[in-house]
């Protein structure tokens, strides 16, 4: 598969996303924010970092980059887009995902491993996560508190769009386990059409045992599985 990783000024997990995708045996390349094409991507990753220094609001400036036009187009046509950390913030600012990410309750940046409870297997980003499996994946953010108005939250639930929730090692959604004050311990969501997702934790940082966790691989495998399916589907319909 071809992973496009969008590169904004001061994206700084861009390289990590490339590394993870290539480690799993796939092709990955940068797309500079001034570009207007995604060069035939199968999936787009909006990486973490501090695009434009997080000035004004996280993600507020990056969403106006030329490349984001292409990303919206890509998403409209059903392409898979995953925003990680700052990428999640950018997708919310761009309106590709509902809600917003605000300052952590603690007012402090938090970097640590957390446990994630996959809230649904029904998404291109979670379908390959073993049932009941909790993921242990790092977070590193100062503005990861997910907020949306009650209607939006209701809709997220109704549409099964919550992908991950912070939990303790038994899988309980406790306040203690919530590192930033997110509503419903939300760590990641997807859009109604389920092809655009955002998450604050960093799966790309958890793809090797030597980095103390390989749980992030399940998320990449889900994406790759979904893409393979749709490709074979396409080719068979093309043949018949």
């Amino acid at each position, binding site marked *: 598969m071809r992973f496009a990783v969008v590169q904004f*000024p001061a994206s700084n*997990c861009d390289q990590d996303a*490339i590394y993870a995708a290539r480690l799993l045996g796939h092709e990955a390349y940068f797309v500079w924010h001034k570009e207007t094409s995604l060069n035939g991507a199968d999936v787009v990753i909006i990486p973490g*970092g501090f695009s434009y220094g997080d000035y004004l609001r996280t993600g507020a400036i990056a969403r106006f980059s030329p490349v984001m036009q292409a990303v919206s187009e890509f998403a409209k046509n059903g392409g898979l887009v995953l925003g990680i950390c700052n990428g999640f913030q950018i997708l919310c600012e761009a309106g590709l995902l509902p809600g917003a990410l605000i300052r952590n309750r603690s007012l402090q940046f938090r970097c640590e*491993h957390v*446990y994630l409870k996959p809230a649904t297997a029904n998404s291109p980003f979670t379908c390959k996560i073993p049932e009941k499996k909790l993921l242990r994946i790092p977070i590193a953010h100062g503005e990861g508190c997910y907020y949306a108005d009650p209607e939006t939250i209701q809709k997220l639930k109704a549409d099964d769009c919550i992908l991950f929730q912070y939990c303790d090692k038994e899988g309980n959604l406790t306040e203690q*386990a919530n590192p930033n004050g997110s509503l419903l311990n939300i760590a990641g969501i997807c859009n109604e059409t389920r092809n655009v997702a955002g998450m604050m934790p960093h799966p790309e940082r958890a793809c090797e045992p030597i*980095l103390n966790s390989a749980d992030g691989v399940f998320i990449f495998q889900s994406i790759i599985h979904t893409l393979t399916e749709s490709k074979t589907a396409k080719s068979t319909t093309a043949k018949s």
Partner: protein
Amino acid sequence: MTEPKITPELVKQHNLSAEEYEQIKAILGREPTYTELGIFSVMWSEHCSYKNTRPLLKTFPTKSPRILVGAGEENAGIIDIGDGLAIAFKIESHNHPSAVEPFQGAATGVGGIIRDIFTMGARPLCVLDSLRFGDITNPEVRRLFNGVVAGIAHYGNCFGIPTIAGEVYFDESYEGNPLVNVFCLGVLKHNQIARGRACGVGNPVFYVGPATGRDGLAGAAFASQDLTDESAQIQRGAVQVGDPFMEKLVCEACLELLATGAVAGIQDMGAAGLTCSTCETAARASTGIEIELNKVPQRAPNMTPYEIMLSESQERMLIIVHKGREEEVKKIFDKWDLPWSQIGVVTDTGRMVVKYNGEVVANIPAKAIATESPVYHREAREPSYLAAVRAFRLDQIQRKYEPVEQLQSLLAFPSIASKNWVYRQYDYMVRNNSVVCPGSDAAVIRIKTDCLPPEPEDVNIGSATQIPLDKIPEKYIAITSDCNGSYVYLDPYEGSKIAVAEAARNLACSGAKPLGVTDNLNFGNPYNPELFYQLKESVRGIGDACRALNTPITGGNCSLYNQNPSGAIDPTPTIAMVGLIEKPEYITTQWFKDEGDSIILIGSPVNIDDPLQGLGGSAFLKVVHGIKNGSPPPCDLNQAALLIETLLGLIYGGGVKSAHDCSDGGLAVCLAECCISHQIARNTPRLIGAEINLTGETLEKFGLDPQKILPEALLFGETQNRVVITTDKHNTGKILARAAIYNYPAAEIGKVGGSKLLIKTDAGEHCWEVEKLYDIWWNAIARAMR
């Protein structure tokens, strides 16, 4: 605009002595202009010229076959780590700026040291921060601590570099004068080393980065009132504010630019900004340099040449470009939307010539300011307090032995308690290389292909992703910083040896072979003979220890005049040490692993030749008795070297499951940390107990006479050169036998397991719930900060 005329007053305000002023006139063969006076004053300040410390620094061991760029040659030292790869690293202090404005002071400290590293052509890989504050119960201290940590987090996290190790001590002596030492390490290939040299007569000189403002102008800078008609507020130098976003762009652009080969020389504008970078690059290349100040981008209105030359605006670089390749340079800066300007040219005159409105405002032989500053041999006198310290004996105090409470108070003591309140605010994982994160003796970071600066073939971002992931073999680097200031205060020579030995021990515990040191000498006023004695003795101690452990010094930084109204700080020579781990399987962490493993103490539990049995200057005396006194535990350097060799031998031989060195708080604290320091995830420690036998029977295995040993010295004494390791119980015999071959004392002292830490001694059995110890130790600082 008329410059003020030079008066003895003005000279004095510039911290230049009458002799120094005479020397300046001799160099110029005339009176200096006002701008020239400013230039000399910053270049001949202690910070830039090391005029009081150079004779001492000369005594450091600085050679080894691995050293590619040595101390003092360039902005940072560079060490060969094999396979054509090298690491550049350096430490820098930002103590005084942080005292004035903790957040920005610390943030710009991080920015400055990162620039020193990519200036060498290396890609910054990780940061380490070594911090000292007053008593944490003081609200003002908490404000500084909070601000400094937030500032480091702000800059490092936004730049996207992991802050992966450090240390924090709290002690009254740092009240009002915090120490903020920041270290950065970068990676590059041998053929990528860049130089801060203005090579090639006729080559254009570029200025890159944000516009110059009146940032960080030294006190002297606004000594004279008729500089400009700006308001007093604007006239007073503004506090430097860091812009990590800008720095990230400057770094990426510079590395991309270096890959093109269009760069003849490059240097960051740090202290004394434009002044220092221009004259130093010219001096190093034995050329001259001529710049036109009207071409320097300016942020503030009506800046004078004096102000432009002395400004310390952040994130700026000076780049000398091969004539004819200007366009490549402009193209890259425009791609990154960076402000740049061509401000001058390299000449063959050997002089630094500064023009403004067509007038020459400074014309100085570059070498004279950059390298021929005055040198002083200051007087050193043993401080009066040391006699009393040496005479201190334990019978002078009311001895107390309540081990259960005492261990708990030690674990709650902020200097010993977990520093997670600090490092969880840092992104210590970004870039996928953090193998051992903060919380073990030394941090371990991996070097993989994408850690390297771009090479000619992949300057084009797209193609960078075509490079094979394993273009270079992965390497593992361990880093640590250590210095117990109380030790150094109580015995400058011995205490400094201990700092080096502990750093090396921390590295060895992680499986690393020590390679080299960068030191940060934080001391008081060198004009005070007693304080200068501390500095002199400390340097001697560091030198001897580095020779014994064969870890050459690759560079460092001096911060003198660290005083506060109530006197000087504890002398604090921060030692940052870097080591290489040959194979991933050697990587070792400090926490106990599995039930049933046997626990082995390497090194004698107590040094009975020490009349204080390791309690001199100990955390125990400070916490339990509230005193800072007694000679620190002596550190035998041959033993220290042998311990490193033994420990590495055991680790390489296989079977060592954990290794943790004994330092502050002694054996009991060390054992407790082994039980409680493995954090798996948020609120999720992996706790495991241990059963320890320190009764006479065990002590005799070390050839000790149990009668002679004080119980508190056994648990809390800080006898040097000890490490606690664990191994599978079937391996115990093998490990002990191998230790015996190295002829280093070692014996089994217990087993891992259960939910309690149980220590049996002849003075009784002591028991703690590890859960409780964890809570005390992990949350102590967070509680103090509420």
